């Protein structure tokens, strides 16, 4: 069932991350997927699958979404990134246009 304002991001291993739609919209790619006038399956179900993004990386990305919304609302903190994640994180971020 599809609740309003919620999307589900599915990692390569099948983990599902349920986050606010507003948070997911931080990523330009996801925003396009969810709001495009075309008929993406994602638009219907509110689910997006990323077969090439691993779970740890996707989790970090979701954390980034929430941090970014917090930053925009004025609370400017630091977003720490573990060095070992950085390379993959960078490539995932590049893909997600975020």
């Amino acid at each position, binding site marked *: 069932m599809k609740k309003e304002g919620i999307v589900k991001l599915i990692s390569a291993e099948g983990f599902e991350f349920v986050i606010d739609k507003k948070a997911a919209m931080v990523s330009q790619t996801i925003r396009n997927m969810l709001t495009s006038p075309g008929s993406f399956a994602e638009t219907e179900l509110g689910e997006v699958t990323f077969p090439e993004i691993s779970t740890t990386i996707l989790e970090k*990305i979701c954390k*980034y979404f929430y*941090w*970014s919304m917090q*930053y*925009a*609302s*004025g609370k*400017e903190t630091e*977003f720490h*990134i573990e*060095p070992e*994640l*950085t*390379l993959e*994180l*960078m*490539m995932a*971020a*590049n893909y*997600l246009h*975020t």
Partner: protein
Amino acid sequence: MVVLRSRAVAPAVASPPPPKKREGDEAGIEPITPARAREPPAAAAAAQQSPQSSAPGPGPSPDDAGPAGPRRRSLRLASAGEPAGGTAPSGARKRKGRPIGGEEIRVLDLDGGDGRGDAPRAKPRREGNVDGDEVKDLNVELDLMEFPEGDGGGGFLSLRSGKSSDERGLEVRDALVGAGGDAVVNISDGEADDERERAGGGRNGAEVKLFGVDLRGIVNGSVKDKERNSAEDKGKGIMIDSVGTSLVLKSDCDGSGEVRRRGKYSAAEKGKAKLVEDDNFLLSNGSDVGLNQENVVLDGSTRKTAEVRILIEAPSRRTRVKLNESSGLDMREKFKEIARINASRFAHFNPEEVEQESNSAPEVAGNAEVASAEANEDPEDWPGPFSTAMKIIRDRSSKLSAQQTRFPLEKSKSPVIEWVPRRDQGRDLIEPVPPSLQELSMKVLADNVDAITSLEGVPDALRHRLCQLLCDSRRISAHFFDLLIQGCPTELCIRDCSWLTEEQFDKSFRECDTSGLTVLQLNQCGRCLGDYIVSSSLAKSANSLTVLSTVSITGACRLTDVGLRTLVSAAPSIRSINLNQCSLLTSASVETLANRLGSVLKELYIDDCQSIDAMLTLPALKKFEHLEVLSVAGIPSVCDDFIRKFIFVRGHHMKELVLGDCPNLTDASFKVIAEACPGLLSLDIVNLIKLSDAAIGHLANGCRGIRKLILRRNTFSDEAIAAFLETSGEQLEELSLNNVKKVGHNTAISLARRAKGLQILDLSWCRNLTDEAMGLIVDSCSSLKELKVFGCSQITNTFLDGHANPNVHIIGSRLSPILEHINVPETAGLLRYS
């Protein structure tokens, strides 16, 4: 000089405007010989004024007995206009400047009064040439004085008020000397046009008038009375001489005097009467006259009168003033005499003079053939979009000036810009933008670069960005270089290879599989790239770089023609080659490139290759069949002939030309370019000081699709640039008017109306643009992303906080880390236009 000044100043003491030493100078000023340019006027002035003494009273120049009216007026004007004291001496000093000085003085005054702050620009420069240092000093001062405009001659006024002329003069001088930067720059540019226009717009009518008077007086250089009369009658001679004279005249100007002066002028000068009424007119007259004067003198006495007449006519075209030349004979004699005397002064060729002459061409469009030093016709004379636009703009200005007849105008020559800043505090409510995750991770990577074991799978764009970050922070190392070369790299872009040693380079490239390399960028590789290295590493075999299409090895200062030949023999499909600053390459390299790559090469960059003789490369250059981009900046042998011959053959495909810093180019080249390069999209003409408005006119008529225009330190007038924008502004995406001093309100209005697609705009050092002008531009150019305002000390928070464009990024208004704003072309590998 001092003497001159003081005289002018003294009268001014009584009145707020700067002392008008002009008058005194005028009386005593006679054609100044180069050696003693100042002396005669000084002497003359001395009689009337004592440099440091406050003898010259405000109103009554002692010498103004006869032509008291005009003289007095001129003095007032002179003083009103500018820091007469300061300028007077300088005027004398400058040879060219002398007449210019007069002009400049006028201009200065005008500028002072002119809220637009035009003043700082042109005047000082012109004078600078002749007398070098002195002029420069003067100019500097002038600039300084001009800057604080605001009200009519604000800067000047502040200097002038409450001080004796001497002090003022000295202060001005000191201020000027103290000035640096802009002022000096201004000096070098010396745009007569600018001055004239300024004069036209002059703050105070008085000032403007002074010019007319001063000029005349100066020209005559004879007895005061005669001077005055002749000055008024002719109004032309003044230019030639004496800054001092002009100064004197100016200093006497003041508000009250204006009215009186006007009356006198109209009575005394049939021709000038209108000038009096119209500040603009007078100013433009003066400036035109001045410029023309210079030209006249340069060309010889016989032309002088003719030109003088023309000068008068020219401004009248714009100013609708009909100058009376009934006293032509008289003037002729005087001019001849003056020309004779001044001829030696102009014996030295000064490129700036030539520039000014050509600058004057557009001003006197109607008499371009006569007045212009160039053989080219003025594009304004041709039917075409540029001339139409110029007319529109001139009408705009003259309508405005017509409406403001009696008041000292701050922007009399420029249209008024109405713009009000937003009232809300929107600035503070803008949300902070969080940094992107990509950037954050990139930074962490850059910090831990040594821990990276492999860059496999990382897209090229990310590699380049990472490499750029590392180069900028000097953390790049051989380890990272090896990571980049691992495997079969497709692109290798290193902005700065100065850290790379030859051994490292050799070792890395020997083992590297370059068969897939399409883009190779090794900028600043002088240290590591020598001839033998190329053959042993990069060009290991004849086919080692088969798919290489873009190569950039700027700064390869040890690479000779032989090394380049080796490189090119291994890479047969190069489509873009960047050899900037490879100082050992000669025209033989271009020959090699043409022979091997003639059918494929599209972009050729050979900036600053000092050993390349442009004319010798011509036969080779003509062999490139598809050349789209040619960059020859900084090669001194690039001349009109070269451009003409090359463009006739290959101009049809040209999309980008970079001709900056080629000092020998003149308007003739641009005529050719406009006719033969219809598809030109990008043009860079920085530091080409010999160009005049005619060049911009040609471009506006011919190259209608220009998207990127880079100017810097050019001497085009405000109207010309505005006219160009009117005709071609729609497609413009990037425009730089850095240090184009004359830019003013006309340009601002045209930008606002036309430049809807403009994304990057550089208005650094354009000091005539007020907050209102900037606000209008920013609010109207909806696509604007970046606005550079370095050196625009005249803009305030009214604009910075009050504009309504949420996307624009304003750079340069406050201290900020410079590297933040450096633009790096993102797609280093792709061809620009294919």
